[in-house]
């Protein structure tokens, strides 16, 4: 039975023209949300699939709850850290570390507060942190927390993907962006301050990685975390 037939106008079905992965795919889907929407929830059907296949699904507030496992192989913790209260960021990493086996891996991404774009915004008197983020970090801060949570850092680098894709474009133009030339085309077609700034900044961040927007850290758990976050942070 077709879902759209069953639910008619209550469900809006859209198709993205490429597979953008989970995070960017969700961001693109937001372009289709009604203008009067005030709150957005992301529902992941994979969790329901996993449950049906006999995989334990843990729902928890990582700022408040332990995950309740201790032998996971890998934790993908992407674009979450910046949404946590900064008193709880280390707590969350410690909880992830506790959920992993020794030699288990952590993949973490988070925005770089020291990016050129953020610096320029601050110079212009604007709040540099994205409005839905609680706190953003420098790479040194992230590495310090990752190590404190019991990980050795395997690799840490700055990704350029957000410098290329965080722009204001028509949906179809947005989907075609794969390089600087496409970014220029968008900036010419839609000459907003944001797009012009992005286009000006891109060649610089291409040359100077530490000015890019995205921090990527891959860690391996080498010891149980010794820090006692609640005692430390109150």
């Amino acid at each position, binding site marked *: 039975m077709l879902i759209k037939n069953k639910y008619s106008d209550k469900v809006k*079905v859209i*198709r993205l023209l490429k597979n*953008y992965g989970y995070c960017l795919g969700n961001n*693109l889907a937001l372009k*289709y949300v009604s203008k009067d929407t005030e709150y*957005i929830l992301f*529902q992941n059907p994979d969790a329901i699939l996993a449950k049906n296949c006999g995989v334990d699904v843990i729902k928890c507030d990582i700022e408040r709850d332990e995950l309740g496992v201790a032998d996971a192989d890998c934790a993908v913790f992407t674009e979450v850290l910046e949404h946590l209260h900064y008193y709880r960021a280390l707590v969350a990493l410690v909880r992830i570390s506790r959920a992993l086996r020794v030699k288990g891996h952590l993949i973490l991404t988070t925005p770089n507060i020291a990016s050129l774009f953020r610096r320029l915004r601050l110079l212009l008197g604007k709040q540099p942190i994205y409005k839905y983020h609680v706190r953003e970090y420098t790479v040194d801060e992230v590495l310090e927390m990752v190590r404190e949570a019991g990980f050795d850092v395997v690799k840490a680098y700055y990704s350029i993907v957000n410098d290329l894709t965080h722009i204001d474009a028509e949906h179809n133009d947005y989907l075609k962006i794969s390089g600087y030339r496409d970014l220029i085309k968008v900036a010419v077609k839609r000459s907003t301050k944001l797009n012009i700034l992005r286009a000006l900044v891109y060649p610089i961040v291409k040359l100077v990685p530490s000015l890019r927007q995205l921090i990527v850290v891959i860690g391996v758990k080498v010891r149980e975390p010794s820090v006692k976050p609640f005692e430390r942070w109150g």
Partner: protein
Amino acid sequence: MSYPKVSIVILIYNAKSTLGEVLDKAIRSALNQDYPNIEIIVADNNSSDGTYEYVN
């Protein structure tokens, strides 16, 4: 009492072959909320197994 609109985004990829009726269950779950003012966006991440046709 006013109810601000809540949009529930469900991102799917090759869900027809892997999720099947579970996808239906996920959408029903979102629809069956007591909260009256919701919309559901099902976004197909360019599936290759006919998922878009399945939901559309």
